[in-house]
Every structure is written in structure tokens, then in C-alpha cells.
């Protein structure tokens, strides 16, 4: 596996030496202007725990005329994890529930208007004995064990489960060809039709999520995707399992990929992760 990888990169390196004079290393990012030589971002992941080889993906641009600009190596601990469906499910359920506030509310017997007087005497009428018209036995009476307002379902998943949720979902996206790497989110035009046509030509699913390392996205793509509801922009810190599953295609910039890898590997390899794992919110009983 490693030998095959080395030979492939050696071939590409020879090609670049013949074409351009500049030395291309793994960490340097070239500008779009140098379109002649391909962009090779092959990093040697020495800290990888995963036995499988690093994954490789094409690097594209948001330019309708160019197809591929280069190739990037993806860390196996982030993008080549054996996906755990149950962990992905746990993450989605957690995302839905932990912010939920149920405002469903029913009135109990003393809260319902009226019902202070005894409707008829205890004995002599032949009817059942009652003390109030708002008891739970009566129509229009109070509800005994009904929902009470502001019920929350807050809980936190262990940090390891959330990290594995992210890595599993990213691996799934990559394995199913729904992960596209892009050099940057620079676009030639700010027309919504331009990006729609681009996505249609490249068969980038009906809904697309563009992720970059910054909060402030380039002008053209911001204007183009503003009116399109199913194409959304997100910074790296906003990425989450639910959004990745909601949008068919995930488009990451090279900066976003490297940032993701750095953050996830930092958490996976830090020695005090077990302290972070302990939930600070006490469970009752």
C-alpha cells in the first residue's frame, strides 16, 4: 500500500519538475494563477493510527472551465474510519434533542378556572359524589399528569462519541463520493445560475454545503448562494453531523480539510481527553 503510494507520488513529482521550476512541497498552497502545474498536496501522515493508507482526492475549482487542478492526501484517522452507524445516529438524535424545549402545557385541577363549589350534596341526589367540577374525572377538568411547560431534554454526549460521529460521517461522505475538495471558494461570477449550472454539470447533489476555514466567505459565492436555499455556506467550526447528512454533497476547501484534520487529531491525541470526557452536568439520581 505504502509502496504503491510512493510510486504514484514519484511519477507526479517528476511531471512537476519537467513542467515548472518551482519546488512544490506538501504544505505550500499555490495561487490560482499558476494553472499549468497541478497542485499536489501529498502529506505523509506519520501520526496515523489507522492501518489503512491515506485517502486521495481530486482538488477542483469553482470554475466551470477547469475540471481538476491537483490532488490531496486525506488523513485516514479522519476520512478513512470504518463508519459506525449507531454513533452517527446517536449524534443526530443528540443534536435534535439537547436544544429542544417543549412548551406543551396543561392545567392541573386547581389551575382550571372555576370548580370551587361542591356541585351537589354528598348524599340524597342519587348521583355519584363529587366535590368539584374540575376534577380530572370531569370533561373540562384538570389534567393530572400532563405535560408541564418548559420541559427540556438536555444532555451531552461524551466528547469521544461526538468526535467519532464527525469522523464516521466524513468517512461515509468520502466513500460515497459526496465529498468534494476545492482549492478555494473563489468564483468567477455572482449569478445564482452560474453555481446552479456548475453543480448540475458536475452532478453535485441537489443540496450542497460549502465549508471554508473562515467566517467571511468570498463575495461572489455569498451573493450567488444567498437566494438558493439548498446551497449553504458554513465555517469549519459550524460543521456538524446533522448538516452533513442533510446536504447531499459536502464541498470542503483545502484550508478547511487541513483545519478539520488538525482539530480532530488534536482531540484524539491529547493526553487529558478523559477529563474532557466527563460530563460536567450532574445527572439527578
Amino acid at each position, binding site marked *: 500500500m505504502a509502496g504503491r503510494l510512493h510510486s504514484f507520488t514519484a511519477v507526479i513529482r517528476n511531471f512537476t519538475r519537467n513542467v515548472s521550476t518551482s519546488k512544490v512541497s506538501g504544505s505550500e498552497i499555490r495561487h490560482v494563477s499558476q494553472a499549468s502545474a497541478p497542485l499536489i498536496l501529498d502529506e505523509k501522515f506519520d501520526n496515523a493510527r489507522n492501518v489503512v493508507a491515506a485517502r486521495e482526492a481530486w482538488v477542483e475549482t469553482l470554475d466551470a472551465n477547469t475540471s481538476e487542478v491537483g490532488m490531496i492526501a486525506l488523513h485516514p484517522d479522519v476520512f478513512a474510519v470504518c463508519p459506525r452507524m449507531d454513533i452517527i445516529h446517536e449524534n443526530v438524535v443528540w*443534536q435534535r434533542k439537547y436544544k429542544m424545549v417543549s412548551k406543551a402545557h396543561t392545567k392541573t385541577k386547581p389551575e382550571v378556572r372555576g370548580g370551587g363549589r361542591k356541585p351537589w350534596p354528598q348524599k340524597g341526589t342519587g348521583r355519584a359524589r363529587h366535590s368539584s367540577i374540575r376534577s380530572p374525572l370531569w370533561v373540562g377538568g384538570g389534567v393530572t399528569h400532563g405535560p408541564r411547560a418548559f420541559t427540556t431534554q438536555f444532555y451531552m454526549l461524551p466528547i469521544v462519541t461526538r468526535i467519532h460521529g464527525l469522523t464516521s460521517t466524513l468517512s461515509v461522505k468520502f466513500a460515497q463520493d459526496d465529498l468534494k475538495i476545492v482549492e478555494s471558494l473563489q468564483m468567477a461570477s455572482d449569478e445564482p445560475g452560474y453555481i446552479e449550472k456548475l453543480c448540475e454539470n458536475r452532478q453535485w447533489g441537489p443540496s450542497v454545503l460549502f465549508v471554508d476555514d473562515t467566517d467571511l466567505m468570498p463575495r461572489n459565492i455569498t451573493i450567488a448562494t444567498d437566494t438558493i436555499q439548498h446551497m449553504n455556506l458554513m465555517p469549519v467550526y459550524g460543521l456538524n453531523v446533522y448538516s452533513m447528512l442533510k446536504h447531499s454533497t459536502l464541498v470542503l476547501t483545502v484550508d478547511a480539510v487541513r483545519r478539520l484534520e488538525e482539530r480532530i487529531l488534536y482531540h484524539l491525541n491529547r493526553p487529558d481527553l478523559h477529563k474532557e470526557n466527563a460530563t460536567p452536568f450532574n445527572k439527578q439520581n
Partner: protein
Amino acid sequence: MTTVAGSLMRSLGAVAQGMVQATPVALRGVSQGLAARATPTSATWTPQVTSVRHRYHADKLNRGPLMKNYGFEDRLHTKGLMPHVVHGKRLPIPVYRPKNGWAEKRALFGQNDYIDILGDGSLKPTDVSYSVPYWLRGFKGNEYQMLLRKRKFFHAEMGKYQPTKLTELNKRIRKLYVHLNQKTKDYYWRKA
């Protein structure tokens, strides 16, 4: 009197005889042949007998059905199509209005839930859950605990602007305390 009547009768009789002798009358119920045989035939007078055929059934039909219940107005529909009672009324089902699955809040649902992992670590998901009321962020509990938390946050404000509501809150807290600690077993703490 007798003389007048008698004279009248005689005169009428004379007239009748004259009439009979002058024109033979078609007698009811007597056929032509029979009449011809009965009356004496003479060379000069041949009585004309016309027969009558009674069509009792046809006459009855012509008179039409026997009128019964005179003046009674029958308000039933006895023929024709069944009438529509209410035109075009739909069943009481609400009109289906599908939700926009790609509205902004739904398209970007879950954003920043992993900000403590993918960000620099200074922010937690509870710090950025802006959709949750601030006194409920990062909180889970039963109704009693929730009301205690609400009182802790709002007793000053409620005391100034919503005193009745604060009184009701205190009453409810007291009632729940008694219920959970004196009336029920410990496991009801989770449900309450």
C-alpha cells in the same frame, strides 16, 4: 185545480203524441234492430235507432284518479334526483401546507453544535444555543427543579411586575415539594 192540471196534462199528452207521431225518438237502451221489430213498420215511417256504447273504463280514466286528501300539500319529493343538502362543503380536514424544509433555520439546523471540538475550545454548545431561553440553557430537570430555577432567575423581576404570578409559582413549588417528599416514593422524582 184539477181542471187546470187536467187541461195541462191533456195538452202535454197531445204534444207528446204529436211528437212521437212526428219524429221517432231514439230510445235509450234499445237497439236499432229491436226497436225496428218492436215498432210497427209502416210504408211511410222508418224509425232511426242509434245505439250507444258505454265506455265506462275509458270514462273513468278520463276523469283521472280519485281526488283524496283535498287541500293537503305533500312536501315529499316523490320523483326526480335526490336533492343536495349543502353544496360544495368539504370535510373538516385542515388544508395541507407543507413546511419549507430548506428555510434558513432548518437548512442550518445543528450549526455550531461541535464548536468546542472544531473551534478553539473557548466556546461550548450551550454558550451558542440562542434558540433556547437563557435560563434553560444546559439545564434538564423535572418540573419542581425547573420552577426552582425559574424563581432563582426571576423572583426580583416577577416581584415587581408580576406579583400574582410569583405567588402562584411559590404555591406550585410548595405543592410539588409536599407531593414529592411526603406523598410519593422516591422514584417519582424522575417523573415529576
